[in-house]
């Protein structure tokens, strides 16, 4: 328990009045201290608060938010004691950079014995990540606020703001290696599918509707159409979030854009039934084993949400290659999302291509800048270095340059078919 500013102010005022009264020998002046001392006396003796029986619950909805979605926080206070609480201040700690969008995270509360009070406030997070709210602090003072006491209740609750996603439409993929389950990736094998693959002579067990009558008339024997079977494939997304200082050539938030791209691709690839894995290389290294389904999408998005840009602690050749080789069988499709700013990326991609992986590289495109001042020149030199890397990659990997101001759907349409 400590003096509040107000308490100290009142006490100072009382002693000032006494000092002035003594100095000027105006003893009637000292009578002004009587109301102040009475206030101290009554305020302190009338107030006695014991908040141990106050139960507080917090509920966050939703626990995961996508992009700019707001989070509603419901606080419920129940007085389990046999006494009434009056004028206590309940404050739920909302750390920066979270913003209280609507409602209040701090309210004065008065609760009768057994009473319950519930209120909601809404917060928003400026960007993706893991955030915590809390603890709830209960601040109570004596009746007039001369003394203050504060207790903290409840642990923090954590919620995740996942990266924003865009709808990118169906991805037309080709793969050297496909899984056993049917999907949307042509397998170069005869089976159930929609694309024409070959003709063969008619067997007694063939369906009549599969007979190609024109070809049969030309050859003189009954022939039937055969189709290419479609299966799922394994895809690994590698997000390069290292920052070696070259990201200044971009006039947008490179990491956020790369993460949006990765999240959108993962969502679409999983929706198409593929087995998708993720490896993040940057200040935080993480990987998610390839798997199917919605749960896998959430796992991937959770990992993307905690991505931090920065200098990597291990070499990329070790950090990426070791993960790829352990996670993915040879000939699998690897989608590399990188700004391609350093030479190490080129050597890693070459090495993976040599091991038989099919590489698709998606790289954010910087805007062209003109000018001759020192800053612009440095940006142009970095852009030229990047361009040189891009030219090197074009021979070993399929390369797609994506810009943030055009929809991903438009940019990826028809470009993802690689052999």
């Amino acid at each position: 328990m400590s003096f509040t500013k107000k308490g100290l102010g009142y006490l100072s005022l009382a002693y000032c009045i006494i000092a002035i009264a003594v100095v000027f020998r105006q003893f009637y002046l000292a009578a002004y201290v009587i109301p102040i001392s009475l206030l101290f006396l009554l305020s302190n003796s009338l107030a006695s608060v014991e908040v141990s029986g106050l139960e507080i619950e917090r509920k966050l909805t939703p626990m995961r938010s996508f992009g700019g979605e707001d989070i509603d926080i419901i606080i419920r206070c129940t007085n389990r004691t046999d006494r009434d609480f009056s004028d206590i201040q309940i404050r739920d700690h909302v750390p920066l950079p979270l913003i209280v969008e609507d409602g209040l995270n701090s309210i004065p509360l008065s609760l009768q014995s057994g009473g319950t009070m519930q209120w909601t406030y809404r917060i928003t997070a400026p960007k993706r990540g893991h955030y915590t709210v809390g603890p709830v602090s209960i601040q109570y003072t004596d009746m007039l606020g001369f003394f203050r006491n504060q207790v903290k209740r409840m642990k923090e609750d954590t919620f995740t703001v996942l990266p924003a996603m865009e709808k990118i439409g169906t991805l037309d993929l080709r793969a050297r290696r496909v899984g056993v389950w049917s999907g949307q990736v042509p397998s170069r094998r005869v089976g159930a599918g929609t694309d024409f693959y070959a003709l063969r002579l008619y067997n007694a067990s063939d369906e009549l509707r599969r007979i190609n009558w024109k070809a049969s008339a030309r050859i003189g024997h009954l022939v039937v159409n055969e189709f290419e079977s479609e299966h799922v494939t394994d895809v690994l997304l590698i997000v390069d979030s290292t920052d070696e200082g070259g990201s200044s050539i971009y006039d947008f938030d490179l990491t956020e854009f790369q993460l949006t791209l990765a999240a959108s691709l993962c969502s679409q690839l999983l929706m198409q039934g593929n087995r998708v894995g993720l490896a993040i290389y940057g200040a935080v290294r993480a990987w998610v084993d390839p798997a199917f389904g919605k749960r896998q999408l959430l796992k991937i998005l959770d990992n993307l949400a905690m991505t931090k840009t920065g200098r990597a602690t291990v070499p990329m050749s070790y950090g990426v290659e070791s993960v790829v080789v352990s996670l993915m069988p040879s000939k699998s499709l690897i989608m590399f999302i990188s700004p391609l700013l350093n030479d190490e990326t080129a050597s890693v991609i070459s090495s993976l291509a040599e091991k038989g992986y099919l590489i698709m590289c998606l790289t954010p495109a910087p805007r062209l800048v003109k000018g001759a001042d020192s800053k612009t020149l440095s940006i142009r030199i970095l852009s030229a270095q990047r361009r040189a890397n891009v030219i090197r990659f074009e021979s070993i990997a399929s390369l797609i340059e994506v810009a943030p101001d055009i929809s991903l759907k438009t940019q990826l349409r028809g470009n993802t078919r690689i052999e």
Partner: protein
Amino acid sequence: MNERKRWFIFTTAISGLFSLTITAIILSMQSYLIIGGLIGSVSVLVWWYGVFEGDSRKLQIGILLASFLFAFSIVDRIITNTLISAFPIQLLAFNLFLFNVEMMSLVPAHHKLHREVTRSIDLAQRSWKIMQRKLSVLIILFSGCYVITISAIYLGGFIYTLFPIFGDTSIYLTVVFVSLALFVTLREESTTDRYKKYR
């Protein structure tokens, strides 16, 4: 009556009370009434604006101006050696001033609930109940303070006529009150610390 209307009436009453405080202070002054009136008018305007906006900064400015005016009136009375004759009205002004200081912390704390948060009527009603309770306690407390102080002073005068040895009764009473208040405060604090230690 809806919450906004009720809040408007409440803030108007608070502002009226502040005007009454300033009037009491000006009435207790003997000279420089025009300067006092000017400062008082400014403080009343700032206070009104602060109350309706729920802005604690403006309320603090209003209180500071009022405290300056009050100090000025006290000095004026000390210089002219007429402190005793204006004592009841000055004490009333002092009590009202302290009451307004309480309002200064009460109004901004509840302002948001009544003026900005419209979706939770329940919260606004609870806040209104808290304020009602606090207001009634404050009114009783400050009226009590005024009555007790006046009684103490007149009792002091009565004791002085009987026993002239207790000439400085007022200062004596003051010191006793302050000591008692501090004693209770420190005792409370030490009890809490001891409780924490054994918990």
